[in-house]
């Protein structure tokens, strides 16, 4: 079940109210359908505020446990706050996982004990946080994961459309390359779901749309711009005929841009990133980076918060989720042609 595919009309500031309404109704629809899909015989009354704070009448507590400080979770948090501040009696706080799984687990424990109603989570590891998610579920807490899924079923997962987005990138990129050529992938360290999604989507996309574009290299560049520079320089030595580079995130793509600039290959290399960071968009405007998958991360936060308010209203108990809701964010493949449409307030 996906919401929005390619070229979803980008929201502008004056449409913010409608955007929120749309978001809420969309999530309601998604959530309800999940619930309807597998009714849970155990949870008797739908109206029971099982997802409320255990205090019953106190303010609704929500918290977001991020991986570590970064532009993406910061933007999510802003989006969440925007929606929640309109809600009556809701408390929200942002917690930092300090890049350690045990810290996230500890924070989950603390939040569970505190009687939190909804927890937003960006898990550092999909398996390691599963026991904590189960624990939260048992306590009647809804867990909404952002971008990185966990192996335990939970209320909802809101992600940038990693897989389909990557497929789109492959399609647009192949067009830019004229339907043929050699591509190198600058990849993330293995073992993370998001890497597989973004890589597989890309590869499948090429196969489907541009079978003559071949992937000739796939190297790990650790999500880092600096590392990507070194890696691509090495790849170029081995494969001087390279015509395309796909960085699985923007930082790595920008590293490729740096190398291309240095070697004077800007016109010849087609470079795509993934995420839609401010810097990437600027680079596209300057004619350096060819394109990226842009997701309005603030919007992602808002979606998540909207889902949260629905769940916390008690209309859908957390224990009802045998099958979790899976929200894919609408995205745009931003290239020189359409990058101007992305408003400054939407850039992160």
């Amino acid at each position, binding site marked *: 079940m996906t919401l929005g595919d390619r070229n979803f009309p980008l929201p502008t500031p004056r449409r913010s109210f409608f955007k929120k309404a749309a978001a809420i109704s969309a999530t309601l629809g998604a959530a309800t359908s999940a619930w309807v899909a597998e009714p849970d015989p155990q949870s008797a009354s739908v109206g029971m505020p099982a997802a409320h704070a255990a205090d019953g009448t106190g303010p609704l507590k929500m918290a977001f446990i991020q991986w570590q400080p970064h532009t993406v979770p910061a933007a999510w948090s802003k989006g969440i706050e925007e929606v929640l501040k309109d809600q009556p009696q809701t408390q929200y*706080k942002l*917690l*930092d996982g*300090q*890049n*350690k*799984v*045990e810290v996230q*687990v*500890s*924070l989950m*424990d*603390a939040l*569970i*004990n*505190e*009687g939190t109603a909804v927890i937003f989570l960006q898990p*550092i*590891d*999909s*398996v*390691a*946080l*599963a*026991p904590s998610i189960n624990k939260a579920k048992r306590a009647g807490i809804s867990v909404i994961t952002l971008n990185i899924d966990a*192996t335990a079923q939970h209320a909802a997962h809101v992600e940038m459309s990693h897989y389909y987005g990557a497929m789109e990138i492959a399609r647009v990129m192949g067009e830019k390359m004229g339907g043929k050529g050699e591509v190198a992938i600058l990849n993330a*360290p*293995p*073992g*993370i*779901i998001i890497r*597989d999604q973004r890589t597989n989507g890309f590869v499948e996309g090429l196969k489907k749309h541009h079978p003559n574009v071949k992937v000739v290299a796939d190297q790990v560049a650790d999500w880092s711009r600096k590392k990507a520079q070194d890696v691509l320089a090495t790849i170029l030595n081995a494969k001087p005929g390279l015509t395309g580079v796909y960085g699985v995130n923007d930082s790595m793509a920008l590293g490729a841009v740096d190398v291309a600039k240095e070697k004077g290959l800007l016109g010849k290399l087609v470079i795509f990133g993934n995420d839609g960071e401010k810097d990437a968009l600027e680079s596209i405007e300057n004619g350096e980076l060819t394109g990226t998958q842009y997701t309005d991360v603030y919007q992602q936060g808002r979606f998540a918060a909207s889902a949260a308010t629905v769940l916390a209203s008690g209309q859908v108990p957390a224990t009802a989720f045998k099958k979790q809701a899976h929200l894919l964010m609408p995205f745009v493949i931003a290239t020189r042609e359409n990058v101007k449409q992305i408003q400054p307030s939407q850039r992160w």
Partner: protein
Amino acid sequence: MIRRHGISALPIFFLVTFAFFCAVVPRFATAGNLEALMAGYAFIAIVAMGESFAILLRGVDLSVGAVMALAGMVAFDASLILHLPGYLSVALALVVATFAGVLNGLLIVFLRLQPFIATLATLAAYRGIVFAISGRQLVPGLSTTALDDPWIIGLETYFDVGATLGVESIAVPAIPLSFLLMIVLLVLFEVLLRSTRFGRDFYATGGNPEAARLAGIDLRRTVLIGYALSGFCAGVAALLLVARLTTSTEALGNGMELTAIAAAVIGGVRLNGGMGSMWGPVVGTFLLGVVLMGLTLFGISQFVQQILTGAVLLAAIAHSRWLQSRRLLPSAPEGS
């Protein structure tokens, strides 16, 4: 003439801090929170005890975090790739961890490397090995598979003390197995250090290695055993953490060495060696835990929390220095 150490203020400080948070922070003194505290910090306390062995010997073990990752990954691979029965995986992980510690000892004793340098090198080496043997990267799909062997997962169990004792009126926190294990190790190690000749030799080796050597104490054996114990403790902690997470990650235990050293120093273990106990680091760990959990529940931002942790550390060191200065009278000179 002052006979003994001034009584350390640490246990009192801990109780006062604990009481403070119980009174001020809502939901702090709940069974659930105390369970979370015990479960979240017992394994850290075990690493802190292991680290203390190294510090007591006038050294330091910077590789404890990496050894944790190594032991965790060994258990993971053994269970999910080699499909060994749980008790073997656990045993294998402990053996590897202890051996990693022995290797540290060998570098220090035979290559005469400074402990800081030796364990810094092994820190890098062990992390590298973890990446090389990581089942999550070698076998696709394992990164989303949870461990399910009862021997390993069983380490994360809770004992419902309240039900056993038949206490109905108040909610008694369930005691995690990791906490009980920590207590057992604490008792064993304290007895070892205080009441055996090896323990006395241990303090002597750390307090004045030259005097120990001249008294016929085998310095090499003492140092090797000390670092082996540090590795072993890291292994035990790793297994407890892996059980809690139902998986092992390559970054397991990242930064654990600093937490362990901080807990040890707060617990009164002197960085110059020769002075300290095992219960000190344990109390130090739980003090840190109480402060961090209390502040989180109180809503204090985590950056402020880090500042306060630093303040606790400084206070502990100042207290320790003050205790030392009270006892100081002219002591024998160090050579001409």
